[in-house]
């Protein structure tokens, strides 16, 4: 897996004392530092983002460098963090707000859905809300209840929002730059299981990243596997085993931008492979896989040789950590599903 992952821009596992490259936490921190240096309109706001450097240390050191005017330790109130950020964006700043965990972002949802996503539209282009809402999400880190959810579909379903999920330190670095540059609100979901799980070298200047484009991580012909965030790693493991044991090479796509979805990329790949497997850690019903599937159907139906398959979390809450792995899609489940697809 390490080699495959490396080749595919998924970095290498961080092991022992090895200190090459940056973790995703460090990559995001660096992106924030870079944009704050280059654009003084950028401010960071959230619970514990200042003196503490964020509960995951994502904003470590920023307050020392940029001061407490630009790195705002906020009171404990998610709706106001979003709402105050909207106000700051309306008055010339470029706030990067942090929700401490995505599971608490629902408290800010009315502000995000009702105003961040609508003010440009409401004002017929007169106003704009260039803000980023960062939030760690997803399971796999032995966390408490409400700390492991994966609900990108909520944000993907709101017109006027862009939603982005990086799957590696290098992509996080590039995408956060793009998100902060974007003139419209961007929900930036950070797979916390990847925060420190592997390292990657970062380029001097951030890679170009275009919000709205999926990324082919591994080319192949046998089937298309689409995933994002932390799910990309079990997918690559399964794909490696598939190549090894069955000699079948999967095309692996990192969706990366949840919304607006890259429909052409999905259709293009599926029309070449004829098979589609979607992997997400969200619960099954009304999860994001349905949208990916519809794009394949709308763009490549007659190429489909097998039913589109999804491997997802279950329609249960994420269990406490002893059983977390029973909830999450595993390389084995993905492998099995791929094998099944290849029978057709």
């Amino acid at each position, binding site marked *: 897996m390490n080699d495959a992952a490396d080749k595919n821009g998924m970095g290498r596992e961080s092991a022992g004392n090895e200190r090459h490259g940056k973790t995703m936490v460090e990559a995001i921190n660096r992106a924030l530092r870079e944009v704050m240096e280059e654009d003084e309109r950028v401010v960071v706001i959230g619970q514990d983002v200042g003196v503490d450097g964020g509960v995951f240390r994502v904003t470590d050191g920023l307050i020392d460098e940029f001061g407490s005017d630009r790195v705002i330790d906020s009171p404990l109130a998610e709706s106001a963090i979003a709402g105050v950020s909207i106000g*700051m964006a309306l008055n010339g700043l470029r706030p990067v707000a942090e929700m401490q965990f995505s599971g608490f972002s629902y408290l800010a949802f009315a502000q995000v859905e009702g*105003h961040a996503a609508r003010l440009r*539209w409401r004002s*017929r282009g007169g106003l704009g809300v260039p803000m980023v809402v960062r939030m760690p999400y997803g399971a796999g880190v032995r966390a408490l209840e409400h700390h492991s959810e994966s609900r990108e579909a909520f944000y993907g379903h709101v017109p006027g929002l862009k939603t982005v999920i990086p799957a590696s330190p290098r992509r996080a670095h590039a995408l956060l730059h793009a998100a902060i540059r974007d003139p419209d609100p961007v929900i930036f979901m950070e797979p916390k299981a990847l925060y420190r799980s592997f390292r990657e070298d970062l380029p001097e200047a951030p890679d170009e990243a275009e919000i709205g484009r999926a990324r082919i991580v591994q080319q192949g012909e046998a089937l298309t596997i689409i995933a994002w965030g932390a799910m990309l790693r079990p997918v690559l493991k399964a794909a490696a085993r598939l190549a090894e044991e069955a000699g079948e090479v999967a095309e692996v796509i990192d969706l990366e931008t949840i919304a607006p979805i890259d429909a052409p990329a999905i259709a293009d790949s599926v029309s070449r492979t004829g098979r589609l497997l979607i992997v997400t850690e969200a619960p099954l019903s009304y999860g994001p896989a349905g949208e990916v599937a519809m794009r394949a159907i709308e763009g490549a139906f007659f190429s489909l040789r097998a039913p589109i398959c999804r491997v997802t979390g279950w329609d249960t809450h994420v269990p406490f950590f002893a059983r977390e792995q029973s909830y999450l899609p595993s390389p084995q489940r993905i492998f099995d599903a791929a094998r099944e697809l290849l029978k057709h």
Partner: protein
Amino acid sequence: MTILLAEPDPAFEPFRLLDRDGSLRDEAAVEPDIAMVEEMHEAMLRARRVDERLLSLQRRGDLGTFAPVKGQEAAQIGSISCIGDEDWFVPSFREMAAALWRGQSLVDLLVATAGWNEGLATRQDARNLPPAIPVASQLPHAVGIAHAGRLRGEESVVLTYFGDGATSEGDFHEALNFASVLNAPVVFFCQNNGWAISTPRARQTGSRTLCQKAHAYGISAAQVDGNDLLAVRAVTREAVRRAREEGRPSMIEALTYRMEVHTTADDPTRYRDDDEVEKWRARDPINRVQALLKARDQIDDEMIAALESQIEDEINKAWDDAKEQIRELEDGVPDAIFDHVFREPTAELDRQRDLFAKLERRDDG
């Protein structure tokens, strides 16, 4: 020595300057700036007439739902007149009088109320936000705008409006707390008009006064007779000064009354007595200013009549223009619904727009 469980504070004394008959409560204390009072009187009268016209146009089917302002003209004009172009106006959904004062075009207002998004087109530099429909949701924006202004080295102040009902929403509290912690130069202006749809003030919250809630965040506050133009202006000016000079937020609770329906979808006879409405009719804020101006020999009935007819002409003209604009919109391309979702249209939205156009053509054919 120790209070075991301290009881809530006593009530505030509402601030008043103008008596109901138009005489000043303390003649010596404050001689009003009469030119300014005249301007404010005109604005109040205009708002009243626009309100009435909107209502009659709505009743005959030309306009959609809106929230009348009648009865709250002094609260709005007395306060909005205290800020300048460099300051920000952050309204809720009933601030038509204040919006007109800030330069809102009457034509736009009519076009928007007729159901066309174009009516809310906002000038980028105007420092006036469009209405915020979700109750209390605009209050955090006011704080963020104020804080950004301060960070960018401006002296600007933000004046934001909300109702008595809004003080029950979490966003109200979170916003006041943020304003206090950040020292944001915001004036939180509450129009306590006695009702939140059918909920009377007394059932909305157990506190004796609403402005008392500001104290919970270390914010100073005042209750004011909201139908007293001069008192509203005096208190708001002081709050604006503190915000501008001392960077301190304040809250003002203006005691006023919604004389009309909550919105045009509402039937207030279901929940309130005519008596109450009549009691407040006697406190009409426009009558009170007119009495003052008459007592000062600044206006007479003839001048009022002339002003009325000038306003009527303005409104007629605006409605004609609005109808013209609506006709143009009706003839225009309906794919305007895809505009301004983002600054740059995404490939996906362009695809949907194309599909829409294709379907429209099919509909026609």
